[in-house]
Structure formats: C-alpha cells, structure tokens
C-alpha cells in the first residue's frame, strides 16, 4: 500500500493563505522589527496582505465564473462564486477597517491600551501611559481574524467551519478587551463575548456531533445526501441542525442570541467595533447562506418556523430597543441587530435571487458600518483643560456637530440614511433586494414586517440627524473652538430655539452631564479620512449606479451543490 499525497489546489486557497501567512509573519515582525519602525512596517505589511487577498480573489474570479467553482482539500473548502464574492468583500472591508484601526488621530494615540496586561488603574498602567507606549499586535490579530473570516463562508465541512469560527473569534475576543479608555468596560465586554461565544461554540459543536451521528460524515455534501434519504433518526438531524444554526445566528447577532452585541460593540475599541460589525457579519451570513442553501433545503419545512420566529424577533427587538438607546455605540449595535433581521428576510424564503441580494446587502451594510464607526471614533470628549478624552458616545454630545463639521456629519448622515434605506443610497438597493427575494419566495409577511421595522428604525436614525444638524451645541464652547463658533455664528444667531423646544423627541436625549466636558472632533492622520471617504463614496455610488456590482454578484451567486 502506497501513500498518495493529496492533490492540493494551492491557487484556489491563495486568498486564505496570503492572509493567514501574513498574520503569522506579522507576529515575527512584532518580535524582530525595532519598536520605532514597527508600526509603519506592520501597517504596510497588513495592508499589502489584504490587498494580496483581494488580488487573489480577482485572479480566481473568471475561472470560477466559468467552471462554477472547485472543491479543495477533499471537500474541506468550497471555492465557488459566493465564496469569492464574500472573500473579496471581507478583504476589502478589512482594508478600510484597518485604516481606521491604524489612525492615531491628532492626539497621537491609537484606540488600544498601552499595556493590555496592566491592571486598570494600576501604577504600571500609568507608567506605560506616561511613557507613551503604543502596541502594534493588533495588526496580526486583525489579520488572523480576517483569515478565519475568509475560511468561514468557504467551509465545505463542519469541522472546517468550526475551526474557522474559532480562528476568527479568538482574536476578536482579545481585540475587544484592548480599549485604551474605559478599560474595565472593555475587559468586561471581552469576558462576556468570550463566555457567550464559547457557549455558542459548544452548542454548535454538539450540533455538529449530532449531525455526524445522523449521517456518518462531516462534509456538507454527504450530509445533504443523507438529509434526502429518510431514516428513522430524524430527531438527531433536526436537533443537530437547530444547534448548528444557533451557533451561526449567535455570530451574526440574531435574537435571541444577540445579547452580547450591545456590550461588545460599546466596550470594544471603536475601530475594532467597526471591523467586527462589518466583517464578522459578512462571514457569518456567508456561512449561514451556504449551510441553509446547500445542506438544509430538505429541512426547510421543519426549520421554517424557527427561522421565521428568529427573523421577526430580530427585526422587532433590534428596532424597538434601539429606539430607547442614548449611547451611540449601543444604538448602532441594536441597529446592527435589526439589520441582521432584514438580511434574514432575504434568506429565509430560500429564493434563488436571495443569495445575490444578501451578498450585495452585506457589502453596502459593511461599508456604511465601518464608515459610521470611523466617525464615532473621531468625535471625542474634551475636559476643561483641553485634554482630549475618549469618544463622546452619549447622543446629546452630538448636538450641533453638523454645524461645525459639515463634512464629517454629512457623511455620518449619509451612512444613517443608507441604514434607513432611503433611495439613492446603497442601503435602499440592498433592502429592495432582500425584500424582493422575500416576496418572490412567498414570505411577503416578513417583507411587510421588514418595511414596518425599517420605518421604526428610520426614527432613531433620523433623530441623530436632527441632533447633528438641527440642534444647537451646548453653549459652553471652549476657547479652542471659539473661531469655529464664530464662523458658525450667523447660522446660530437665527436660531432662538431652546434645546428643549421640540416636544420631547430630542429633549429626552439632553442629559445632565459634567459642564466642563465638551465635545470636539479630532483631526486624523489621513487614514480615517480616507476610510470614511471611501465608505461614503461606496454608499453613494452603489445607491445611484449599482448595476456593475449587481451584475458581477449575480453571475457569482450559485453555490456548488
């Protein structure tokens, strides 16, 4: 008996290999590159790796378009149209997110703790802070997470799926705990995320075990065959499927597995929140799409009830709770829950055009999300001494920003309008796609609930726009902003409106806060500006001329069975 080496199609693995390889090298760079050069090297290297992944996807594109895709490593990975679209989306979004991660702003400080190991409030931490330490481990961590995300939607068997899930999750748990400010909140978020994530992983692993027990295999293809051949052990199959779905739904933040979202979004360093909110969602929906469309169609009748309930609950809970939020990051977190529900409406009906609709939605949602968190990262608190503190996340602190920083607030408003699905933004085309898929697949009640939830969601997005543009900033501007204020004076002079004059809609937002803390917008090193501009351009251009992207996606939206 001779051993035959497996045929490995390295070319089709290249996007994953480039990113994971670069992540491993990034760890070595961390050890060997001198400290003062480390940031430049890490940033350039990470961006190059992600760009390499995008290039690899582009090179594979036409081949896969022609052949429909290939299975690699004995069915472990399936590189077909949706895989490439998702990998391209994740890599592109990761590049943009990495730009916001890299930006140290005009304060010269990035979003991460100088020494993550130091106990919050300890002398050691204070020492590190005063030394001005900045860590660069985040770059390889982001690359590892991205690598996992690239594998997650491409997985062709449940073991690969599980490994990818862990590869993408572990760096995220760690990144969540690294915030420079409000470190206890950040560490608490990381702990919650880790515990709940571990719990979800365990559920999923158990589900995988049950599926293995039912079918005798871990690969999607074999399980699909087994689903089609009825045996007496349906309960194994059903319980297994539900548990696997639960694991996936946890990652994409669907109700009732959403409770980690607000805490983690709030606690994590803001640029990481943007990265995580956009890219994790793409990866998780990609994996769900593949499992739902290739493995579970035979179970549609049994699982429909579950997914309908989850979808409805996700939209309603996300929207309703978001309305009551007063913290920008928590609000965006609940909004992301609601969006998970909107995307699910396009999936549940198992409609043929659902795949391309969801793929498009994920791209535009991801762009708007990274852009929005990029803006949140720049809006800061400043104390009486003029020292810039952390992000000004209370909604009331955003009052009047549009008057002083029209471009920044304008792009934020654009992202919000895109979330709300206003036409001529990309979010509208995305919503149109998923709701079309739902109606076409006979799930019109979901589409109807979806639009009603959208209208509800529009309320809190619009409320933010009102705060930014139509409300006056608190009067206690510090000296530094006096010239800004002077420039805006003719504008504000025309407004003799007290802040509480609008019948409660906004008044409830204006909370008591320390009078000495004001809101300011810090300058960027350019990276974040580029990221926000790119996101805004994508949101606008894909809203008006979506055709090239829609066409490209629609040719690549068939799963290899």
């Amino acid at each position: 008996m001779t051993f035959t080496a497996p045929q490995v199609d390295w070319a089709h693995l290249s996007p994953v290999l480039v990113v994971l390889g670069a992540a491993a090298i990034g760890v070595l760079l961390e050890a060997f590159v001198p400290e003062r050069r480390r940031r430049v090297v890490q940033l350039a290297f990470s961006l190059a790796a992600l760009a390499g992944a995008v290039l690899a996807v582009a090179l594979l594109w036409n081949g896969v378009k022609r052949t429909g895709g290939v299975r690699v490593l004995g069915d472990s990975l399936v590189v077909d149209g949706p895989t490439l679209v998702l990998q391209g989306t994740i890599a592109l979004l990761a590049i943009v997110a990495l730009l916001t991660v890299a930006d140290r702003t005009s304060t010269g400080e990035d979003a991460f703790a100088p020494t993550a190991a130091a106990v919050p409030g300890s002398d050691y931490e204070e020492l590190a802070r005063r030394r001005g330490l900045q860590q660069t481990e985040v770059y390889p961590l982001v690359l590892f997470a991205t690598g996992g995300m690239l594998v997650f939607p491409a997985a062709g068997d449940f073991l690969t799926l599980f490994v990818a899930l862990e590869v993408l999750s572990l760096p995220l748990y760690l990144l969540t705990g690294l915030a420079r400010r409000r470190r206890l909140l950040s560490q608490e978020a990381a702990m919650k995320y880790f515990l709940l994530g571990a719990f979800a992983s365990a559920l999923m692993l158990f589900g995988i075990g049950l599926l293995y027990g039912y079918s005798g295999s871990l690969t999607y293809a074999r399980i699909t065959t087994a689903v089609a051949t009825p045996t007496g052990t349906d309960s194994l199959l059903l319980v297994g499927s539900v548990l696997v779905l639960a694991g996936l739904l946890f990652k994409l933040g669907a109700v009732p597995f959403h409770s980690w979202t607000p805490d983690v979004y709030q606690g994590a360093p803001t640029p990481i929140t943007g990265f995580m909110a956009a890219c994790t969602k793409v990866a998780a929906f990609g994996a769900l799409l593949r499992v739902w469309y290739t493995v579970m169609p035979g179970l549609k009748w049994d699982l429909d009830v579950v997914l309908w309930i989850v979808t409805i609950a996700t939209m309603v809970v996300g929207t309703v709770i978001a309305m009551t939020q007063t913290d920008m990051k928590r609000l965006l977190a609940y909004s992301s829950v609601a969006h998970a529900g909107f995307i699910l409406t396009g999936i549940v009906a198992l409609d043929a055009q659902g795949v391309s609709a969801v793929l498009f939605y994920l791209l535009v949602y991801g762009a708007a999300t990274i852009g929005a968190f990029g803006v949140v990262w720049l809006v800061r608190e400043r104390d009486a001494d003029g020292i810039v503190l952390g992000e000004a996340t209370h909604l009331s602190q955003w009052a009047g920003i549009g008057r002083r920083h029209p471009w920044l607030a304008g792009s934020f408003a654009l992202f919000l309008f895109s979330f709300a699905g206003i036409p001529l933004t990309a979010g509208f085309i995305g919503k149109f796609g998923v709701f079309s898929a739902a109606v076409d697949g006979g799930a019109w009640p979901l589409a109807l609930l979806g639009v009603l939830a959208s209208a509800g969601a529009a309320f809190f997005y619009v409320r933010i726009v009102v705060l930014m543009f139509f409300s006056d900033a608190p009067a206690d501007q510090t000296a530094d902003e006096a010239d800004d204020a002077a420039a805006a004076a003719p504008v504000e002079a025309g407004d003799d409106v007290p802040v509480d004059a609008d019948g409660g809609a906004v008044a409830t937002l204006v909370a008591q806060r320390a009078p000495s803390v004001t809101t300011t917008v810090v300058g960027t090193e350019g990276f974040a500006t580029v990221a926000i501009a790119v996101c805004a351009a994508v949101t606008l251009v894909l809203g008006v001329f979506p055709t090239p992207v829609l066409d490209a996606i629609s040719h690549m939206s068939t799963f290899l069975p």
Partner: protein
Amino acid sequence: MSSDFPWLTALIVVPLVGAAVLWLMPAGARRRTRAVALTVALVEVAIGVATLSAFDTGDAGVQLKETHQWIPSLGVSYAVGVDGVGIALILMSIALVPLVILAGWREQGSDDAPTDRLRHFLALTLVLEAFIVAVFAARDVFFFYVLFEAMLIPVYFLIGAFGGAQRRYAAIKFLIYSLTGGLIMLVAVIGLYLQGPGGKDGFLTDNLTGLTMDPTLEKWLFAGFFLAFAIKAPMFPVHTWLPDAAQNATPGTSTLLVGVLDKVGTFGMLTLCLPLFPAASRWAAPFVIVLAVISIIYGALLAIGQKDLMRLIAYTSVSHFGFIVLGIFAFTSTSVAGSSFYMVNHGLSTGALFLIAGYLVARRGSQDIADFGGLQRVVPVMAGTFLVAGLSALSLPGLSTFVSEFLVLVGSFARHPAAAIVASTGVVLAAVYVLWTYQRIFTGPVKDGLETMPDLRPRETWAIAPLLAAMIVLGFVPGPALDLVRPPASVTLEQVGVTDLPAAAEGSNP
C-alpha cells in the same frame, strides 16, 4: 429646436446643476447667491415654456418620452414622459420656485450679507425642484418610488434646519409619516413587479398597465400604493403631519410642500393607482369617496377652529385635497379633468396664501391670528392680495379654482349625488374660514404696534402678482388648461374600465 431634444431631462438637470453651483461657489462670489438661484429658476421656467411648445396638446397619450436602462438587473429604467396633467403640474411647480426664492429674499439673513444658511436653503430648494419635475415625469414605477422617497430628504432639511420653533419635531414627524407610507408602498411595488413581465424593463409603467392578476392580490397592492399617496396628499385620517410641517416650515417651504409636493399623492392616485389596479380602484372607490368627503368637511371645520395662520392654511388644503380625491375616484371625465385642473389651481392659490401669510408673519413676528387686526387701513395692497388669494381658496366664480371645483362637484354628482351634495357644504365652510380670517386680520381696530407696518414692497409684489394674474386669467379663460387635462382624463377612464357619465350640467344643457 428638434422635437427629440430631451426636454424633461433638461428640466431635471438644470436645477441640479444650479444647486451644485451654489454649493461649490467660492466664498468670494457668495454675495450673488440669490441672483444665481433666481437665474437658474427663471432659466428653468424658460425651458418649461419651451417644453410646452414641444408638447402636442391634441395627443392624449404620453409624450416627450425618454427611456434608458438604469439598473437592468433589477428591471429599472430611467423613463420619463408626460401627458397633459403631468406637464401642467410641472409647469405650475417650476413657476412657483422663482416666486418662492423671490419671496424668501430676506428670510435667511440680510440683503447685503447672504449667509451660508441662505445658500443651503436655496440649493436645497433647487434640488427639490429637480425631484419634483422628475417625479411628475416618471414613467417607471421604481424610478417614481425612488424619487417619491428621496424627495423627503431635501424637504426634511428644509423644515428641520430653517423652520420655526418646533421644526425638529415637525421634521421628524413629516419624515416618519412619509417614510412609513413609502415603505409599505415598496412592498406593493415589489409585488406588482412580480406580477408583470419582468426582464430588463419590467418596471416601466407601460409594462405594468393592464396586467391580469388575482383580485385579492390586486386589492392588497392597491392598498399599499393608496396608503402612501393618502399620507402624502394628505387625507383624513393620515393628515396630522401636515399642519405641524406647515406651521414650522418657512413660508416658501410650505408653498412647495403643500402647493406642489402633496400633489404627488393625488397625482400618484390618478396616474398609478387607477391605471395599474383598475378593478381594485373600482372596488375601493366608495370607501375612498367617503374618506374624501370626510376630509373636505373635517379639514374645513378644523381650519375654522385654528388660531395659527399657517396651520389654518394647512387645514384648508386638507379640505381641498378631499375635493381632488373625490373627483379622481368619481370616475367621470368631467370630475377627473376637474381634479387635474384643481391640482394646478390649488398650487397657485395655496402658494399665494402661504407667501402672503409669510409676509404678515415676518412683519409681526407671530403666526397667531389674534396678534393681527385692522390691517386693511395700514397695508391695503396686502389686504387686497390676501383677499383675492383667499377668495380663490373659497372658489369664487371668476377665479380659476371655481372652474375646477365646479367641474369636480358636477362630475361627481353624476355618479355619487349624495357625496357631491355633502361635499358642496365644504364650499360654504370655505367661505367661513376665509372670510372670518380676513375679518380677524384685516378689519376692526388696528392692533397696537401694527400702525407702522409697511405695505408690500415691489419685490414682494412681484412674487405674488404672477400667481394672482394666473388665477384670474385661468378663471376667465380656462380653455387652454382644460384642453391639457381633458384628453388624459378620458384615457384614465378607459384604463379603469368604467363608462363615462355625462356631467349633470352638460346633460341638461347639451
């Protein structure tokens, strides 16, 4: 100029270019903000007149058509074209814009130092103008929907950033109301598309007209469209956003909002609901007519009870929109033509009322009717113009609104006598709210502090005069305008599939 010049596209592009110019203007040139905006608006009017000359009034169908693929993978086209009603509304809208700019000359900042605020205000107004023209010209359901929703954003900023005390509340309320209606319509739009032929131009209105579909489904789709249009129009019981918006917006914005934008609701009923869902329209007509009659009476009664001048005008519009909807759903060629003409006249009449009311409010610094009194002796010209505009709101014979209201009532009487009779009490109520308002503001002893109120300035007169002239001219010579709206009315009736009833007046006097 050749007849295949893209007139409608030009009408859409010019204001957008104007807005871009205003926004990109270098700081040094900003003194000319108003001049630039006014020039753009006047150029637009000139193009509008040229468009009318390219339009063949003898042809009842849709003309000046342009169709280009926009998002073929979704079946969406950029398709524009107008029939008589469309072009009449477009002309009315673009005629109002320069007047609004003129009337609001001093509103945002002083004469010599135009502020950034003014620049944004004028640019948003021009953007809105482009959307308005496009929505009246859209011949693709998806394109129409996109404009229907996107239009909300400039209005939202116009109310929220430039309005009065409760502007933020009013802006949010306006947006949420409209968005809810629009999103429900979105589901109906998707459902309609799936019934149609699909393909690269599956959203073209022509491809979706005359489909055979399941009656229940048709009723649901009709309801989705109708709700959005009823909110926009606005009809009882979904009208409550309008008074707040009108009260808090600037007079110019209110003019465009009530005078033009709300027409999109009734225009949509006429050009989308009826042709796309004929059977469901016939089925829903009695219910809609009841709502329309309630709107007429209820709007008028509430108008009588208002203390705020702007809210009062808003409620009179609720009443007038009731008439328009009544005429549309009475399904006679007389009533439908009357409603189409009414849409134009209401824009002129409400526009004049809002602008004059705006002058009064700007001088007094209050919208409260009780703060005025005896102004007839102080500002006779203004009193006169207000009276003419008010009389047009109560449809005095000799003014254009009379013609349209009469056609609506006579046409409706042929099919629904009871509704027409009840609706005609609205005319009496209109006399009450107009004349009583005039009495409170302009007659009696002069209120303290009003003795020195200046009368209309030339600029202000220029903004009002064209409206009054148009009302009087169209009142005595309605023929040309009626020639525009009559042929489409017959086409609409054919599409709905009802036999025309001769109007009572025409029947008795053949």
